[in-house]
Structures are given as C-alpha cells and as structure tokens.
C-alpha cells in the first residue's frame, strides 16, 4: 500500500491537467474493474459488479487532481509570474520547488519584501527555472506545475504532497483490490478539478446517475499546537463526515457508516468541518438529488507541500469502505 501511496503522491497532476495521474491509476485498476472509461472532463470511471436485487448503484468519488500553479507571464529575464489552481497558501510558497508538466523544475521566491512579518501575496511571487531570458525560458504562459516534495514514510505516519486527495484514491484502489463480493453496482470515480470547485464530480455524477454517493477525501484536524478547534485527530480512525462548508451528509448515510464501523469493530471519528468541502457537495445536487456522505482521512497541513496522514487511519479507512460496500444498504 505504501508503494502505491508513494507512486500516487509523487505524480504531478494539478487541476485540469490530470492525464499523468489518470494513466497511473488506470494501470492499477485495470485488472480490478469490469469496465473503465474517461468522460468529457477527464474523470476516470471504473465500474465493478452489477446491481443485484438487494443492491444499489453506488458512486464513490476520490479526486485525482492536486493544487498547483499556472504561469501568467514570463518576463524579459525569464522569471515566471503565476496564478493559483485551487487553494494556494502564499506562506507555503517561498523556497518551495515545483515541477512543470514537461518535467522542468523551478524554485519559488518573491519580490523583496519590506515587511518580513507578512507573507508575500501571489502577485509578489515568481518561479525561477534557471534561465535568463524570455526566449530561453522553456515555460509558456498557461503552463502548469505542482509542488515537488518526496514521499516520506515515518512508520505510523506518512508525509507527502498531494495526500489531498491521492490518499483517497489509494483507499479506493485498495478497496477495489480487497472487495470480493458486493450486491452493488459500484462506480469508482477518480474525479478531476475538485480543487477548483468540485467540477469533475458534478459532471460524472450526472453521467453515473447513482442511487447513493460517497466521497473519499481528506479532512483537517485539531490536534496540532494552537491549531484549529476541531474534534478530529490523527490516529483515531477514519472520519464519518456529518457536515462541511458545502454539504450536509444524509443522516441515514451517517448512521449506516457508523453502524457498519461499530459492527466491524473499526475505530472511527465523527467529523464536522467548518470550512472546505468535497466532491459529495456536487454529487448531492446532481440531477434530481442524491443521498450522500463522505469518508474522510484525517490529514494535517492540508494544502501545504507536506501533508501528513496516519497509516492506521488509512488502513482502517480501507477496511470500513470494504465493509460498507460488502453488504446491502437499507436507508
């Protein structure tokens, strides 16, 4: 599993440019699915199983994209100005490294700051790819890049860029591997453009037209020094989302998830996330409406180049997902 997480998190695919990660995931799931296709917005959709009498048409969504940067101007000296793709935090930029889709590496820095107590704005930051003129710069306006940061295995914990949401993708892939029997027709959807507004989930949910939707995504924690006030912490199990900034989970789905976890003796936490949202938001309002929930993997330092998850939480998330998918659902 850790090799898979390393492979997924070290692939560069910011929102709107998911081809590389789609190829990696496609290769992983090819022997595990009954049917695989890619839709107009690039969502990778894998169907497993058929609907039996006691089954439903389920949609699981984990997003393949990650936050990144897009070049807006190359100046005469070859410095690259950029805009953000997704929720970029300027304080996490300076000194960080990026890699463009063609492999070009670069370092981020900023105009000279007169007030060092404040983080630079995006407008003050630039990328330096080591060239000294516009003509020599291999990057063109509109080219995109993602953070470069290696995967670290700390044993009980793992650190990588883009745990948000490659860890959700990993949980889905592992669940596909482990799941042997299910009464359901399950669509494992690896979505695009979540970080810019859960766009891939909106269109794939319309296409799949599910009876029930579940997103598999990261959630914040409240267990760091003087951090946010939040109940969720690393190592206490996957989280069952009650609500976030864009979605109220269907109470029947919350109960189903909790009952299943209790029955299988899998640790879990109840989650209320004040800001942010997941693909479930878009699935919920697709077509005439879909009951949704979200299985969350607690994650520290979300949207920084070093996001941390607990290995046990990940293993338990896979267990819980497999348990959820193995039995009929009675809402």
């Amino acid at each position: 599993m850790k090799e898979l997480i390393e492979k997924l998190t070290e692939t560069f695919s910011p929102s709107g440019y998911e081809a590389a990660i789609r190829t990696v995931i496609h290769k992983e799931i090819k022997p595990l699915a009954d049917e695989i296709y890619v839709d107009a917005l690039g969502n990778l959709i894998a169907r497993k199983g058929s609907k039996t009498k006691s089954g439903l048409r389920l949609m699981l969504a984990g997003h393949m994209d990650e936050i990144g940067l897009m070049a807006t101007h190359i100046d005469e000296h070859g410095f690259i100005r950029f805009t953000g793709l997704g929720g970029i935090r300027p304080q996490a930029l300076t000194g960080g490294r990026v890699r463009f889709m063609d492999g070009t590496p670069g370092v981020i820095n900023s105009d000279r700051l007169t007030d060092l107590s404040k983080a630079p704005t995006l407008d003050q930051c630039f990328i330096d790819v080591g060239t000294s003129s516009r003509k020599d710069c291999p990057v063109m306006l509109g080219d995109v890049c993602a953070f470069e940061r290696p995967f670290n295995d700390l044993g009980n914990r793992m650190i990588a860029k883009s745990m948000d949401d490659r860890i959700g993708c990993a949980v889905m892939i592992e669940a596909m591997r482990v799941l042997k029997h299910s009464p359901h027709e399950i669509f494992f959807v690896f979505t695009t453009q979540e970080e810019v507004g859960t766009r891939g989930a909106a269109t794939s949910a319309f296409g799949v037209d599910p009876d029930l939707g579940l997103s598999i995504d990261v959630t914040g924690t409240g267990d760091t020094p003087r951090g946010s006030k939040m109940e969720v912490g690393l190592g206490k199990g996957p989280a069952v989302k009650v609500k976030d900034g864009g979605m109220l989970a269907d109470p029947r789905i919350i109960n189903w998830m909790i009952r299943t976890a209790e029955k299988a003796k899998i640790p879990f936490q109840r989650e209320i996330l004040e800001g942010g949202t997941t693909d479930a938001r878009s699935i919920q309002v697709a077509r005439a409406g879909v009951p949704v929930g979200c299985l969350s993997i607690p994650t520290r330092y979300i949207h920084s180049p070093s996001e941390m998850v607990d290995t046990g939480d990940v293993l338990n998330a896979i267990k819980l997902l497999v348990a959820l998918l193995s039995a009929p659902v009675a809402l």
Partner: protein
Amino acid sequence: MPTIGNAQIKLLEKLCNACAVSGDEGQVRRIVLEELNGHAEDISVDALGNVLVRCTGSGTKRLRVMLSAHMDEVGLMLVGDDGDGLFRFEIVGNIDVRQLPGKAVLVGKENLPGVIGSRPIHLTTAEELKHNIPLEDLRIDIGPGGGKVKPGDRAVFATRFQRNGPVLIAKALDDRFGVATLLELVKNSPANIDLLAAFTVQEEIGLRGAKVAAFTFEPDLGIAVDATPSYDLPDWEAEENIFYNTKLGLGPAIYIGDSATLYDPRLVRWMTDTSKASGIPCQFRQPGSGGTDAGAIHRSRAGIPSLTISVPHRYSHTAASVARLDDWKNTFALLHAALTRLTPAILAAERA
C-alpha cells in the same frame, strides 16, 4: 471568405447602442431575431429569454458545436423614487462605483435621458474631494417632469457608438462584439458542423442563461465568444507591465484558465494551430480571475469540453470602451477558419 465589413460594423453600432441590462435583454433580443430572420430555420426563445438557433450542416459525422454570446450588459436598476425625477439605484453586474458620478444614462424601456448627478465643484469642499461618493449617496436624475420611469426599470450608460478609422469606442462591447460575431457565423454557418448558437441572458450576474441553454443543446463542445479587458497601458515607472490581461492589436484572446473554467487543452491547441496555419494572429489571455458562459457550459450534464475566445478592449464595464476593429475582424476570421476545419477527431484523444 466572409469577413467583417461596413454592414457588420453598422450592426455592431446598433447592438452597442441598444440597452439590455441583465434580466431585461429585450432590445438586443429584438435586433438578434430581426437579423436572424431568413438566415436560420430553427430559432426559438427559451424560458429565460435566450435566443437558441440550430444550423444543421450537411456532411457526415458532424460535431454539434455550441457557440454562446451574451446579450446582456452591466448596468443599473432603479430601486427607489425620491420624487422630482430623482431615483435611488443599485448596480447590476460588476461596476466600479467610483466611475459613476457625472455619467449620462438612458433609463427605462423608452431610453429616457438622465444623469447620475454630482455636486458641482463650486459647492464641493476640499475635504469632500478626497473621498469617493458611496452608492447610497448617488441618484439618477431624469429631471422634474422628465417622464415615466419607476423602480425596477434599468439604466445604462448613454455613450453612443463611434468609429474613428481603426478605433471603436462604445459601451457594452462586452458582449455585443460576441453577439455580432455569432450573428455573422450563423449567416455563414460551416457545413461540416451543426452550429448551435445561443444568444444568452444574465451572463453578467452569474452565467445563468448559458446554464439552461447548454442543457437544452447538449452539445459535443462549447465555445463562449466574449470580450475581455486589456490593461496594456505603459507602466508609470517604465517597468514591465506583468498584469496586462490582454493587449490591443494582438488579435483574439484565447483562454487557458479563469475562475470559472479550466479550458480543454485540445480546444486551445485547435485554436492556436488554426492561427498558425491561417496566419490570423491570436494571443493568450493571462490566466486568472473572471469567467464567461463557458463556466456554465462545461459543467452542463455529463460535461462539455469548452473554450472561450474574446475580443480585447480597454475599460471594460465602464461607460466607454476602446477597441481595435482589426482585433474583432481577426476574432471572427479565426473562429470561422477554426470551425471550418473542425472534425470529430479533436475529441478522439483524451483530454490532457
């Protein structure tokens, strides 16, 4: 090759001078329907007021291409009658309130003249001159006995279209440029595609018309034809201007990403390849904020690969914009050339 000539410029003039604030697009819709008469068979007006036109091609394996241009413009809405021809108002769409004092406007269905009043300089104190006048202190004044208008009526800047050789100055070039371009494309619809033209409503207040138009059309791909700001003036300190958005004279602006859409790289490449092959210039709009009808189109149903192409113009969303005729000509020419060479192969490869 069809092109933008005097007749098309006349039509643009008529469109720019019409008043069509979001939600009240009747004046432009009438011109559009009049122009379409005899040029298309399948024309309808939907529940929100979008004009939908289907031009069926004749080849085999035709892509169904939706083109969208919005009929509405930013403007003002009367919200309260203070008597004596004075009206309180709100802004509709994005307008910089600092731009408003002293501007002449046209109010209501009959385009009655009015002015956003401001105190004469003789009677203004030095302290007052330092501050902007907030919206709640501004009034539209049509004069005592100036006619019948009422809260709920819209108002637009009174600027009349002017052409000075290669230069166009007008209000509402955003997006009458698109409307005029789309009308010309309907009249010269390429046979290799089914052209689905949407003249949309309520773009400036949240891409509302395009959302339902795309649902109706269910196209294979979508293109918003719009107008985008240029900010290409020289930098005061002679430093490189790195926030120009677009520049006048460099041709149509192709979008890569904005707040509402990350554009389909296959369509971006199709447009730039067409530019190279035809010699028609184009530029990239700087990725960043903003959005067009494509923001609603690409999210429609199970997803629609989308693109935006815009005519650059300075001083967007103000009383008077400045544009170059050549940029508009090249926008039409590039779109027409691109559509003419469009085949289903473009969507055969996976999106990057």
